[in-house]
């Protein structure tokens, strides 16, 4: 048996030369964390779509007053519970631009039902960039300019009206503004609390951890219902609905931390045990 000759090349070796990466691979491995997240996000079509809608909603915030065809509390007592008026383009075969049919109201005396019929023969073109209900933009700049206005002597209820004859579409725009912003406050508060409390518990461990654990448990087991009811009675009378909503959000934010705090804590505890943490110097 001859000995197997073991040949070792002593030439310099560059692994990168062997496993040459394609440009795509390179792009992938060199991409920043944000870029990776973005790619991943883009793969989720539903999320992208939802994100777009969300962005659009946020984009309306500064200009709600202009976008809404009516002011927040404009009432049309002759159009209570009116159905949505759909926007048409072609009237009797020719293009008239966006228009609506006027509504006629009739009260059915038999059932006391408010009935509306569209008068299909009349086309009322919508007006754009026109003067309508007055408002104060950001509570400061008075104005009357609206992106879309109802037709002259007509109405434009894209989503119908409510029980006092207020335009639903306009009200949703106004309401959406509050929902989109105030919620952020609550989340911020609870987020800060989460990270601080959970972080301390996880990092310090021991007694602090124990106390936080018990607090978490208590708050989590506390039925929320009576809390809400108590809160609703406790908020001051003179507060506007907006302020009340704001107040409740803050309180909810203050009470919402246990869930995430626990996650933060456990994550920290787990990371403490990771090899790289264990191999820390000192």
């Amino acid at each position: 048996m001859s000995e197997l000759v073991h040949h070792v090349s002593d030439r310099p070796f560059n692994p990168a030369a062997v496993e040459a990466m394609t440009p795509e691979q390179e792009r992938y491995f060199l991409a920043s964390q944000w870029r990776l997240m973005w790619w991943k996000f883009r793969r989720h079509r539903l999320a992208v779509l939802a994100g777009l809608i969300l962005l659009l909603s946020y984009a309306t915030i500064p200009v709600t007053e202009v976008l809404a065809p009516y002011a927040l509390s404009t009432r049309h007592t002759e159009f209570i519970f009116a159905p949505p008026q759909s926007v048409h383009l072609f009237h009797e075969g020719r293009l008239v631009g966006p228009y609506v049919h006027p509504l006629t109201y009739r009260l059915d005396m038999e059932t006391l039902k408010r009935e509306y019929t569209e008068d299909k023969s009349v086309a009322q073109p919508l007006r754009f960039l026109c003067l309508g209900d007055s408002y104060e933009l950001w509570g400061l700049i008075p104005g009357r300019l609206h992106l879309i206005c109802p037709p002259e002597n007509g109405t434009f209820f894209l989503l119908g009206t409510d029980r006092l004859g207020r335009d639903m579409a306009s009200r949703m725009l106004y309401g959406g503004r509050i929902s989109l912003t105030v919620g952020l406050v609550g989340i911020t508060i609870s987020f800060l609390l989460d990270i601080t409390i959970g972080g301390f518990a996880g990092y310090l461990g021991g007694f602090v951890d124990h106390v936080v654990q018990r607090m978490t448990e208590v708050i989590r087991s506390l039925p929320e219902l009576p809390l809400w009811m108590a809160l609703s009675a406790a908020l001051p009378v003179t507060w506007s609905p907006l302020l009340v909503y704001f107040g409740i959000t803050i309180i909810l934010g203050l009470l919402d931390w246990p869930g995430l705090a626990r996650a933060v804590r456990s994550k920290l505890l787990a990371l403490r045990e990771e090899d790289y943490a264990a191999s820390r110097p000192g």
Partner: protein
Amino acid sequence: MTMTTFATPAGAMPTRCHLAQLATMLALVALVAGWLQAGVAGAATLVETPTLAGAVAAGELPPVTERVPAEPLVVDLSGAGLSPGRHGGEIDTLFGRAKDIRIMTVYGYARLVGYDRNLDIVPDILKAYEVEEGRIFTFHLRQGHKWSDGAPFTAEDFRYYFEDMVLNEEFSEEGPPGELLVNGRLPKFEVIDETTVRYTWDDPNPNFLAQLAGASPLYIYRPSHYLKQFHPKYAFHEQLEAAIKAAKARSWRALHYKKDRQYENDNPDLPTLEPWVNTTASPSERFVFRRNPYFHRIDINGRQLPYVDEIDAVITNGRLIPVKTGAGDSTLQARGLEFKNYTVLKSGATRNGYDVRLWRSGRGSQLALFPNLNVEDPVWRAVMRDARFRRALSLGINRREINQVVFYGLGVESNNTVLEESPLFRPELRTRFATFDPAEANRLLDEVGLMARDSRGTRLLPDGRPLEIVVETAGEDLNESDILELITDSWREIGVRLLTKALGRQSAPAGDGRRDADVDLVRPRERHRDADAEPQGAGADQRRPAPVAAMGHPRADTGPQRRGAGRSGRRGAQPAARGLGGDHRPRGAHQDLGAHARDQRRAAVHHRHRHGGAATDRGQPGAAQRARGGLVDLGTRCVLRHLPSRQLLARRRGGGRLMLKFVAKRLVTMAMTLLVISALVFVIIQLPEGDYLSNYVANLQAQGETVDSAKIEFLKKQYGLDRPLIAQYATWVIGLAQGDLGYSFEYDQPVAAVVGDRLWLSMILNVLTVIFIYAVAFPIGVYSATHKYSFGDYGITLLGFLGIAVPNFLLALILLYLANVWFGTSIGGLMDPDYIDQPWSIGKAMSVLEHIWVPVVVIGTAGTAGMIRRLRANLLDELQKQYVVTGRAKGLPEGRLLRKYPLRMALNPFVADIGNLLPQIVSGSVIVSAVMSLPTTGPMLLDALQSQDMYLAGSFLMFLAALTVVGMFISDVLLAVLDPRIRLEGGVRR
């Protein structure tokens, strides 16, 4: 009217759920006093009631000749354009809450004396009465009149009340009832003979008869033969003590009080003189009232009244009443329906075979605002007391618009005044200052001196504060808040800012006098003598109290109405009765009326789902496994081994002892946690102003009932509300530890007895929901993860989000509707009303199954969605791991690969989530149960919270908290057992 038609038609009336509506109902039930003709004259020979004939034949009941008094009250219906009826029939009706059964006492309207159509007081239970000098009242009873149990009704029953209750020092510790006092002195009471009694005051008592005739009358007689067993003067000591103990009452007096509520009508054993006798003990979801075989009225054909054999009152969520009525669940419904329900009711009328009739409201006005003339703030008081100011406010209301918007233009625009029929009606009072005239209003306000305005155009008070008027409202009634909103707008034109405070619950501080509201919103009662009731301080220039906002009642559809049924008795029970009886509080008394959140009051609570750590999971797949309680898991550091290594096995074996220690430790902390929670719960319940009694009093007053301060004192002592909070808390917690849940004020029973079946139904509902969530979430979650980004995944994800986004109550209503339309399931409840309070049977179980799926699906949906997302995220995490790749490379079939490892790992949250799920389901089920009127603990909890029924609410909450704590404990232990990677606390600490 024949009885056959009786099974179907429901007279639906646009009335509000309010005592004051009773007049209308009474008219419907055909108890019109104008048809009463005293005297036996035309009465034919007595006819035996068919449904009682069997009992009579069997000897269980004496024949009708012996049951009816020798001189019965003969009711002639022909006088009112009606014909006498026939015996038989049942009425199914719906009440918004169990306490409403007292309405039956009002519908029945058997009083010593009662009002007839002309508002004259005529004898009813009494054969006759005489009044001398306005202060000597002689009452003659009917010979042979009997209580509903057959015992004779005699002068002894009056004597018992006066001598053994009113004059008994122990019983009337806080003093005799105020109604009996004239200038602080009680009358002299005499029994003349078996059927004659006399009350003699020193001074005239003009209110006495009116009080006796009230809808909620002064009862000056008692079924003494029944109540003597609870009175120490008559009962054997040992037996009484045993009875007190059995009822968990604090004294004989409390027991007596509890057994003796004639008006509340909640003791089925209490004999009565009313036409129908309650046969169901509280609490229940269905109360059955049967005919009183000894009732004292007959019709001209000799038929003993009432005609109707039975009234079944099903208790349901007040908001479901219109829907249920529309679905044909009620055969006669007056309460719980409003004008705005008309369209809905009408649309179901032909399908379900009932009539909808507009009925005239008994109230002068749908809504009235009463400026608080006694407001503490001196500046405001001066302004409020200026009649010009109040006139201006009234002129600033656009009643025409309110009428158009809220009442379809069918209302009568009016001040809050009496109905036209009243002899006290004066047309000018209806329209005076009631036309919309902002110019005149502005002129008046300027004249008052409120010239200055702020930047918003709001006028300023003399001291510079803005003219902001706060109106407290229940906020639940859309009509009310709509009207207020309209007024807000029209008042803006006159520079007055109206702020509406929607109260989630009654908060009417009793006693401390501090109040924020400047204007009280009062559901006005008919006030026939309001003109005399002008309070001293109200300004002499105005003859009437000044309700500034008043909306006319919807005009009645006054065509000839067919009666729902010919029925005995008499109308009357004019709600005014209360107003008549010395009940004219000065305006300032409205102070403690508060806003009238009452039966309809349901907490509008935002639904916030608690997903615990779910947020992280969903967003960030890395943090799949979470620590729970005292446990730490290793997170993503997955060291999964095909076979447990020796090391792992060793740790597991050693874990037995550790486990035990862990469980013991957790049990101790659990107890501690619960203790802390109990303190928090107690504090939270106490947070809103006032206590149960102040709420109770406010509620009663809101309904125009008088409340005796002596009785309140008594109740306060009984309930221990006079003791310091700490002591109350200590008693409660110590009781809890011993398994005693405390005492419910509302039901006047131990909490355990009140809760009863509900707890089990709640548990069943919650357990079923958990199973539902697991059963649905598991397959979907797996599919969704293995088919990531596929069409199916998107579809399911969308559905899942819809499940989270759609409010539970909405889903509940939709499913209820569908279940009703498709399967004919009765709306609301957990079983058909017929099965309520019946023993369990196959039919009942089937009925429960038929109903329970809706709430299970509704409550489960939100949880399912979350669970699917979590399982998907976890599984995706696992699927990306190296070992899966290795497995695939080794050629493991995909299905086997999935089942063998990743799925098991991903199952962790399923176990762990019990702790998360339970509170979510429990709080979710509270609201859903309230919406769907399920006989579970949810609606009861809501009611208890609203009425501050402290121990009932507290015990419920503790139960919920315990459920959560136990749930977390179970999930901890399970996790520790199931997942070897999870270290027990203290097990390893490097």
